[in-house]
Structures are given as C-alpha cells and as structure tokens.
C-alpha cells in the first residue's frame, strides 16, 4: 500500500496522476485500463480541489492498494472538507442533444461507468471515496 499526502489543488493533478500510474505500471496494468483509472483519478481529485475546502485550500490523501492475486487496484481519496457524497448526485441524461446538454456533471458519471465499484463514506469528519478496478 502506498500513500500520497498532497494539497488538494488542480496544479497538483499531475503529481497525483504520476503517483498512481507508478503503482499501476509496477503492477503491470494494461494501457487502456491505466487511461480509465487516470480519468477517474482526475475527476475525483479535481472535484476535491474545487469544492472540498473552497475558497480555502486543504489536504487530500491518495492511497493505492494493489492486489496481485486478484489483479485489482483500490484507490482511496480522503479529505476533511465539507461532507459531499458524489454518488448521491443524479446521473446526467446522456441522450439529450448538444443544445439541451448542460456543461458539466459528467465527471462522476464517467467514474461510475468506467470503474468496477465506487464507494463513499463520511467517517470521523472525512470524506472517503474508493474506486476499485480489475487490472488484469
């Protein structure tokens, strides 16, 4: 298990992505899945950066746990900002035309669609969001 403590701001996105990719590459994760996980990491981390402590800044912890036997990875994002369950948000209507579509609201939807499992809990003043993905 590897852990990264970092200030939750969008300028740190590359550092977070690099950190996660390092673990995934070491675990032999295929390129396509790596891209899907990058996408999920970006959407979740940028959400925390934009909303958790706004307008202040605060810390986030990113934890990567790979399971070589099951070929899965669990990535957990922890912040102590305002309680926010992104999974409670209604999915956008992806059948609407360009004119009817709102700009935004897609990020967490893409995460839910591309990951095998996404769980959220609020515990001891912390938002804890975990994504799980098979990396075989």
């Amino acid at each position, binding site marked *: 298990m590897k852990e990264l403590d970092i200030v939750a701001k969008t300028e740190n996105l590359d550092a977070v992505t690099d950190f996660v990719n390092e673990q995934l590459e070491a675990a032999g994760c295929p390129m396509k899945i790596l891209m899907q996980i*990058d996408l999920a990491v970006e959407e979740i981390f940028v959400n925390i950066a934009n909303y958790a402590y706004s307008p202040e800044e605060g810390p986030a912890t990113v934890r990567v746990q790979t399971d070589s036997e099951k070929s899965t990875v669990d990535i957990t994002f922890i912040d102590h900002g305002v309680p926010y369950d992104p999974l409670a948000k209604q999915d956008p209507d992806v059948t609407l035309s360009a004119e009817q579509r709102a700009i935004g609201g897609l990020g967490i939807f893409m995460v839910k669609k591309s990951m095998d499992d996404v769980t959220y809990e609020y515990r001891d003043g912390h938002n804890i969001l975990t994504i799980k993905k098979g990396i075989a």
Partner: protein
Amino acid sequence: MTVNKNLKADALSVAVEGRIDTTTAPELEKEIKDSLGGVKKLVLDFEKVEYISSAGLRVLLSTQKIMNKQGEMKLINVSSDIMEIFEVTGFSDILTIA
C-alpha cells in the same frame, strides 16, 4: 498538449496532440475560440489525442454549440479508446465523428 491550427478560407482544421485534461483543456478552448470567427467548417483531428477527461468534453460541447449556429463541426481519426469515452457519455450522438 500541443495544438496545430490550419485556416483555409472559412475552414479551420485543428490537430490536437497529447492529453486533454483539467490542466490543458482551457488552453485548447482558447486556441479554438480565438480562431472561430467566420469559420463555417471546423475539423478536429484527434489522431494524436491520448486521453480526454470531462474537462475536455466540456470544451467539445461548448464548441459544438457555437458551430451549430455558424456551420458544422467534425472529429476525425478518433481512436477506439477515446471513442469509448464518447459512447459512455453520449457524446458519440452529439458529435459528428468521421
């Protein structure tokens, strides 16, 4: 990410290379919007796009809305990985992908 633009009369082609993410999407949006005046045909070449997040999708959507008013927009050379993202998000129905 790098952006190469080529304007011929009222046709603009934009070749994008690299990652369109939270960090780079604003730059892509500016590059496109700065050149859209009078453009009736916009072609986005995605051959060298490796990755697109929702920040990039937002740029595509807002550009599509502009082009709906003044002409047409088309994406070319979209890889299967990027196509999958468009399909999941319903963007494959909104965008014209050749």
